[in-house]
């Protein structure tokens, strides 16, 4: 009974994580400029990765594998914002102008 519930939960979070990863990828393609694309990549890095790892942890149970998965999650948790910030800052220093509000409305027209 408990095992079945854990299975259902891990199914749900694996599928949810996969869906969020794909949504992040789609956003990476659809977004109109560099800065907005970083937001889409953030979805993959946070919720997609988190849910996938949660689903794997539920499958692994209490073992060394779970500890390693937690480490993997913490690693993503600490390094992904650092890398994103470095990217955004480098782009800003390079002088790439972000698309601001008026321009941002333009691609929303069909």
């Amino acid at each position: 009974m408990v095992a079945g519930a854990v299975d259902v939960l891990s199914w749900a979070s694996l599928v949810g994580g996969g869906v969020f990863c794909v949504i992040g990828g789609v956003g990476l393609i659809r977004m109109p400029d560099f800065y907005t694309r970083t937001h889409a990549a953030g979805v993959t890095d946070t919720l997609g990765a988190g849910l996938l790892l949660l689903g794997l942890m539920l499958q692994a149970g209490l073992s060394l594998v779970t500890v390693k998965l937690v480490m993997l999650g913490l690693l993503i948790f600490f390094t992904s914002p650092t890398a994103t910030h470095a990217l955004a800052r480098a782009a800003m220093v390079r002088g790439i102008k972000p698309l601001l509000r008026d321009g941002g409305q333009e691609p929303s027209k069909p």
Partner: protein
Amino acid sequence: MYALSSFLVLFGFWLLLSGYFTPFLVSMGAAAAIAVVALAHRMNVVDHEGHPVHLGWRVIGYWSWLGKEIAKSAWDVSKIIVNPRLPISPMLVRVKTTQKTTVGVVTYANSITLTPGTISVEVSNEEILVHALTRSSAKALLEGEMDRRVTHFEGAS
């Protein structure tokens, strides 16, 4: 003092990664941890910043709140991405920081970046330049709840 606790943390990390407990491998792990601490000592990074144990248990309260925020805003950004009209209104805003230490400011900037929908572009001691995906995400940030929570989390360190 910090060197000792760094050594313990590194050695624990090594043990968790390896999972073998023969004397030879454990002594190799201890040697590796000592080598890393020695290198870090040469680079002058063995101090309270590289090893923030003083934050203690407040980490758990802050992280659970941050996790909830991340889930909420990631959901919002996902809805924007799958929306065929792509209703984005990107904007740049400056937010003031009220943290006292560098660790606090960095925690705040990293939390901003980790939340989808806002990224910190430039960080200085007093303010952070933030690129927000929509007007509502910028407004949520300017209300300053995250700022208050990070300042509380940083505490009287």
